[in-house]
């Protein structure tokens, strides 16, 4: 099976879009997944600690502060 065929088994690209509709809220499932992913990545970016955290001395900080 080709890669295209494999993806087609998981996601049917030949049908109409799945839609989530609750009152005024109307969005396609594809767009909703993207929005949820963005929120997840945003939260991860805030809460996951940055590797190789290096404390910079105060004179560099002051240099940035006065700009």
């Amino acid at each position, binding site marked *: 099976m080709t890669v295209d065929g494999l993806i087609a088994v998981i996601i049917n690209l030949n049908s109409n879009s799945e839609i989530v509709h609750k009152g005024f809220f109307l969005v396609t499932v594809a767009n909703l997944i*993207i929005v949820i992913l963005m929120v997840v990545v945003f939260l991860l970016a805030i809460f996951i600690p940055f590797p190789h955290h290096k404390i910079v001395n105060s004179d560099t900080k002051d240099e940035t502060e006065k700009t």
Partner: protein
Amino acid sequence: MSTKSENTENRQWTEIVREEILEKLPPEKLLPSKQPAYMASWIYTFGVLTMSALIVVIGTGTFLAIFGPSWWHTSVVGHFVNSLHLWSVELFFFFMVIHLWGKFFMAAWRGNRALTWMTGAVSFLASILAAFTGYVSQENFDSQWISTQAKDGLNSVAIGSHFNVLNFGQMITFHIAVMPAAVIVIVALHLLLVRTKGIVPPINHENKSE
């Protein structure tokens, strides 16, 4: 600067411009070797991720513009470059929106950075128009559907005669010349402002230093 006021009338304009640029954009600010400790957070990486995606967008877009629709619709390499162009745009907006959220909740316009914030917002709007003209320039049923739907909205606000989404020539010109130039200029200005004003400190950091 004392030398600046001396013999102003004898100086060439190139010298005056050079001194002005060096004064406002010194190399140590343009390419700094150190950054404040608070920058060590993932949320500060989304600006450069957006820039990286933009570079891929422009690179793949250049190939698409050179070889044209008959290439990107029919050849295997054309399909691949076309897909790279699409997915780099998706990532460009993905990263840019997270960058926008991060800066919004950080109130990144603090500390005389209003112009940095505004150029970022304008580049977002310009990018939306650049993407839109791209979607209607695909030369397939998708672009036909989008343009026939969009024309009604644009006609209702009386700009359809000047900005005709059914005109492939006009749309592709906007997409590969006008909008990329606008986005690149605004993003360059945004980047220069980030360098000259410095990255915005977290809100708590300001409170601690007061």
